[in-house]
C-alpha cells in the first residue's frame, strides 16, 4: 500500500509540474497573442473588445513616414552590427581557443561583461566619455555601441563551436603548404558556419531590439524602431502600435526561423552520403 501511495504522490507532483509549465508558456505568449489579435481590430481604440476585422491599421502604418524611416535606420544598423560583430567575434574566439597568451583569462571574462553590465550604465558611461572629449553623438558611435552589446553572445556561440573543431585539420592544411589565411578560410570557417550564422542572427536581433542603450547613444533626431515605439507610446496606445508590433514580430521571428530551416536543409544536403555524425 505504501509504495502505491508514494507512486500516487509522484504522479501528482509531475502533474503539478506540467500544469505550472503550461501556465508559464501561456504567460509567455498571451500578451503577444493579444497584441497580434488587436492589430486587426476595427475599433478606434487600442484595446478590447474587438469590434470587427480590419487591416486599416496596417495601411496607416505603411503611410507613416516616421515609422518607415525608423525601420530603415534600425535595419541598416542591425545589418552592419551583425556583419561587424560576427567578424570580430570569430577572430576573437579563434584567438581564445587556439592560442595561449598572457591575459587570456582576463580577456575572456572582460568580453562577457557587456552582457552583464546593465545597459543604463553602459549608456551613461559612453555618453560621459564622449562629453569629456567633446565629441558629438554619431551613427557610427551607435553602431559601435551595438557591436559591444552583441559581441559577448557571438563570442560565446563561436567559441563553443570552435572548441569542437580539432586543430589537426588546420595543421594538416598548413603542413601541405596552405597559408595561414587560406587554411582558416578553407578549413576552419566552413566547419564554423553554423555558429557564424547563429551568431550573426543573434547580433542582428540584439541590435534591432536594443532600446535602453539606444536611447542614450542615438544622435539627435535619429529614431530607431524601439525608440520610435517608445515615443509613440508616450502619446497614446493606438491600434497602429499593435499593427507595428505584429509586423516587428513577423520580421524578428521569421528571419531566424527561416535561417534555421535553411541551415538545417543545407547540412542535411552536405551530410548525405557521409557517415552519420552525432547530432548537434
Amino acid at each position: 500500500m505504501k509504495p502505491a501511495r508514494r507512486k500516487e504522490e509522484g504522479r501528482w507532483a509531475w502533474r503539478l509540474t506540467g500544469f505550472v509549465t503550461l501556465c508559464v508558456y501561456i504567460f509567455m505568449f498571451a500578451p503577444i497573442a493579444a497584441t497580434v489579435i488587436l492589430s486587426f481590430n476595427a475599433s478606434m481604440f487600442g484595446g478590447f473588445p474587438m469590434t470587427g476585422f480590419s487591416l486599416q491599421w496596417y495601411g496607416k502604418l505603411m503611410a507613416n513616414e516616421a515609422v518607415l524611416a525608423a525601420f530603415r535606420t534600425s535595419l541598416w544598423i542591425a545589418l552592419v552590427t551583425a556583419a561587424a560583430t560576427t567578424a570580430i567575434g570569430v577572430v576573437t574566439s579563434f584567438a581564445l581557443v587556439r592560442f595561449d597568451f598572457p591575459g587570456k583569462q582576463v580577456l575572456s571574462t572582460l568580453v562577457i561583461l557587456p552582457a552583464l553590465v546593465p545597459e543604463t550604465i553602459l549608456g551613461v558611461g559612453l555618453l560621459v566619455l564622449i562629453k569629456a572629449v567633446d565629441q558629438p553623438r554619431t551613427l557610427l558611435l551607435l553602431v559601435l555601441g551595438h557591436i559591444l552589446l552583441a559581441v559577448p553572445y557571438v563570442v560565446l556561440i563561436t567559441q563553443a563551436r570552435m572548441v569542437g573543431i580539432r586543430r589537426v585539420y588546420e595543421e594538416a592544411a598548413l603542413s601541405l603548404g596552405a597559408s595561414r589565411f587560406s587554411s582558416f578560410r578553407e578549413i576552419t570557417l566552413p566547419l564554423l558556419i553554423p555558429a557564424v550564422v547563429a551568431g550573426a542572427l543573434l547580433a542582428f536581433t540584439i541590435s534591432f531590439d536594443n532600446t535602453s542603450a539606444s536611447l542614450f547613444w542615438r544622435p539627435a533626431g535619429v529614431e530607431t524602431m524601439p525608440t520610435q515605439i517608445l515615443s509613440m507610446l508616450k502619446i497614446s496606445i493606438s491600434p497602429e502600435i499593435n499593427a507595428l508590433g505584429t509586423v516587428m514580430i513577423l520580421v524578428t521571428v521569421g528571419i531566424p526561423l527561416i535561417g534555421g530551416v535553411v541551415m538545417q536543409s543545407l547540412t542535411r544536403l552536405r551530410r548525405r552520403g557521409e557517415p552519420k555524425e552525432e547530432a548537434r
Partner: protein
Amino acid sequence: MKNRWTLYDPRLAWMLIAPVLLLLIFFLVLPIAVMAAYTFFTFVTAGVETSQLTSANWHEFLTDSYYHGFLLKTLRVGAITALLCGVLGYFPAYFIWATSFKHKWLLLLLLIVPFWISFTIRTFSWINILGEQGVINVALIKMGIISEPLPMLYTEGAVIMGLLHFLLPYMILNVYVSLESIDRTLIAAARSMGCTSAQAFREVTLPLSLPGLAAGLLLCFVLAAGSYVTPQLLGSGRDALFGNLIYDTIMSELNWPMGATLSIVLFVVLGFFAAIYTRYMGMSQIVKGLGG
C-alpha cells in the same frame, strides 16, 4: 618547416584580439573609468560642469534619503523578480528535461522565440492584458463581476510582471542547461537504492541543478535591477527604478556629475552581488547560460 611554437605565436593572437580589445577598452573600460572620475566633478547648472574636484555628489547621495529609497526599492523589486523567476522557472526547466515528449526541441524553441521578439513590444503588449481596455478588465466587466476596471496597469505589480515576462526564459534556460549536465545514472542509482522519486529529486537532482538556479537568480536580479524600459512603460511615476532615476538625472536635469555618481553606485552595488556569486560559483555557469 613551421613548428608548434611559431604556429601559435602570441603575437599573432594579439593581432587577432586587437579589434575586440580596442572595442572593450574604448566602449567599456574607459567609459566606466571616466564616469568614476566624473563623480568628483562640480555641477554648475544644467549641462554645465567644471573639473574642479568635489565630493559634493557623493555627499548628496550618501545623505539624501531620496536616493536611498530608490536604491532600496530597486533592490527589492530585483530580488522579488529574481525569486519569482526562480520558483516559476524551475518547473518548466524540470518538465522539459524530464519529459518523454518526442518534440522536446519545440518546447525549447518556444523559450528562445521571446528573445527574438522586440523587448519593447513584449513589454507594451502587457498593456493589452492589464490595461483598462485589456483582456482581463473587459472580460470581468462583460461577466458582470466588476463594474469599474481594476487599476492593474501602472503599478509595481505590473512592473514586476513585465520583468518576469522578460526574464523567465533566461531562468528556465539556465536551470535547463544545468539539469542537462546531470548524469542520469545517478538518479537511477538513487532510485535503485530505495529512494522515492521525491527523495531522489531532493537528494540528487535539486542539489546538482543549484548552480544553474544560482546563475539564473543572479542574471535575473542584475537585469531587473538595471532595467529602464519596463518601469517606464508599465509603472507610474512612483514605480520608477534606479535606471529611470539615472536617465532623468542625465537626460532631463542634465546633471552629469550626479548621473555619473548614480551610475557608479548601481554598477558597484550590482557588481558586489556578482562578485559574491563568482566567489562561490565561478563564471562558467553564467557563460553556459548565456550561450544557451
